[in-house]
């Protein structure tokens, strides 16, 4: 892919995430979206970069904080917003909400609100792909809290011993809710530990979507070359509160100054600046307007859509 095109795609993904979440923030107080929101804002480089490195048929799984990967993988907003508003037209007909996004046709298998739970699911999907020899890559996104859980270690170990094509994407914001990693991790460096496994390890603090993209490509390449999983650590700063749509710098567990530092390398702005190399300001604005309109249109349709009928409660329990 040409650099120009690539960077436009990356910006479209990053901007879409930022824009969609801004829209959620704008309307959340109206109480129409009755679902707990865990915002991706600040982490757009990871979702955009990794998903750009994946092909349409490749698969991803995430957490309750997965607006970003849903939008980056699907570029779809109708079913997305409908799910936020709890409507019948939502990805899960309103049954899942913000924390349970699926998009099977786009390769998003599932996301989950129990920490760590999609990690082994990704390993199983990777096994299925290997058996079916379909060449699909599975990437699973999880946080620095998830590695506290035993299931991370079981899954990592199993994937390594079974030599499965799975990409572990460690989204490191240094916090689990309000507890910093130092208070939860009995070690200095997770990547030094994972290096001891039969696993390719990559790590970066970049907020540049293109840098993430390149690292993800490397990680996938190593996975295929060495026939073993890859582990990709990517640091980022969570701009908003753990759950909810507000800032929380006044609650005492972290400092606005830290935010300001990260804000200087904001992934969306950074990517926008880079576009200047190939696009005029007008062209960039046009790209943004298209996305703005997409988001606004989707929200309007979501708002106007019907809720599922009461009997839908009883449907989809069993096949």
């Amino acid at each position: 892919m040409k650099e120009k095109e690539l960077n436009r795609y990356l910006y479209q993904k990053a901007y879409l995430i930022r824009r969609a979440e801004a829209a959620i923030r704008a309307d959340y107080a109206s109480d129409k979206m009755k679902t707990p929101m865990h915002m991706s804002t600040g982490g757009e480089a990871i979702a955009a970069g990794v998903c750009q490195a994946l092909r349409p048929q490749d698969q991803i799984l995430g957490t309750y904080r997965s607006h970003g990967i849903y939008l980056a993988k699907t570029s779809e907003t109708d079913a997305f917003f409908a799910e936020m508003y709890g409507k019948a037209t939502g990805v899960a007909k309103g049954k899942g909400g913000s924390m349970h996004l699926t998009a099977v046709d786009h390769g998003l298998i599932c996301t989950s609100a129990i920490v760590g739970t999609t990690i082994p699911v990704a390993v199983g999907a990777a096994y299925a792909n290997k058996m079916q020899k379909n060449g699909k890559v599975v990437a699973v996104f999880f946080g620095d809290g998830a590695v506290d859980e035993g299931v991370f270690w079981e899954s990592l170990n199993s994937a390594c011993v079974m030599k499965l094509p799975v990409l572990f994407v460690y989204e490191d914001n240094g916090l689990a809710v309000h507890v910093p990693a130092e208070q939860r991790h009995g070690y200095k460096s997770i990547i030094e530990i994972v290096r001891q496994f039969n696993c390719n390890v990559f790590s970066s603090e970049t907020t540049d979507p293109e840098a993430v993209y390149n690292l993800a490509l490397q990680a996938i390449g190593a996975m295929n070359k060495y026939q073993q999983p890859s582990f990709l650590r990517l640091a980022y700063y969570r701009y908003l509160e753990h759950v909810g749509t507000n800032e929380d710098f006044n609650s005492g567990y972290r400092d606005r100054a830290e935010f300001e530092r990260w804000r200087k390398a904001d992934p969306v702005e950074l990517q926008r600046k880079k576009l200047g190399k190939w696009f005029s300001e007008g062209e960039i604005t046009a790209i943004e307007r298209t996305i703005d309109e997409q988001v606004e249109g989707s929200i309007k349709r979501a708002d106007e859509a019907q809720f599922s009928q009461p009997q839908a409660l009883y449907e989809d329990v069993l096949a």
Partner: protein
Amino acid sequence: MSRLMSYREALNEAMAQEMRRDPRVFVYGIDVADHKRTFMSSKGLVEEFGLDRCFSTPLAEDAMTGFGLGAAIAGMRPIHVHMRVDFLLLGLNQLVNMIATQRYGSGGRFAVPMVIRAIIGRGWGQSFQHSKTLQSWFAHIPGLKVVMPSTPRDAKGMLVAAIRDDNPVIFIEHRWLYDVVGEVPEHSDEIRLDGAKVIHPGSDITVVATSWMNVEAVKAAEILKKRGVGVEVVDVRSISPFDCQTIIDSVQRTRHCIVADNDWTHCGFSAEVAATVYEACMGQLRAPIRRIGFAPTPCPCARPLENEFYPNAVSIIRAVEAMLKLSETDLSHEDFYSYENKFKGPF
């Protein structure tokens, strides 16, 4: 001396007083010591007792459950807190294979004084991974005590009793109850862990309720009282050991029984209550027992579906009317205040 306080404050006071009384008591769990302090139920404990006795842990429910067992055997009295009972699913191996069996497996050589506080209840469209109750699961296992207090007074007295008890106690708290206010004694008097209680008297029908369903049942009873229907509400409080006698006594008077359990019905605690009442009241019941619980589905997110999923005072009123063959009460002027508003968004 009693004062008015919330269920949340009552839990807090129980822990604080017991920690003052007994240096072996400590509180731990994911996020218990952060600034939100488990919906403020552990407020002030870090300040008064230090981070050694009130601390947040790594996200490791399995290990942290076993950790409590080890600390208990080695002389402490841990209180393990789960923000959601659903997270306790990660600790069930320790709970069932280890904690529930260790006293037995040592021939009674040691005890396991440990409290596991687990929060349940509706939130804000939190859907199927943050909405379970599971009291029938815990109660099914010999070696565990299981309680679900529904008033501030019981919250305090039963938590005090649970902390002093030499057995593992699963203490289940519905978050909508947190803002319920009631009389609570200043002293740390224990309330027994094996007693049901009549919380609203009535002579026409018995509603046996657990946890939040007591609030709904009392509301239903108050509305029906206005048309002269006497609903007796029995708060089960203790799921295991289960005080069936209080319930049986009530049903033998009213001859009608509805079980309103804050859970699914299939193989749930409501089945145990029904089977027990039927057995004791053979030939005395005027109608089959009605079991009210969650819809037999995972909990959905969207509000209209969620409203269908959860039973409430109206479901109870309609069930009472059907059982007593009464016409439907006009509820259009009733005010069904929802405590949910206190837990408004995002979680």
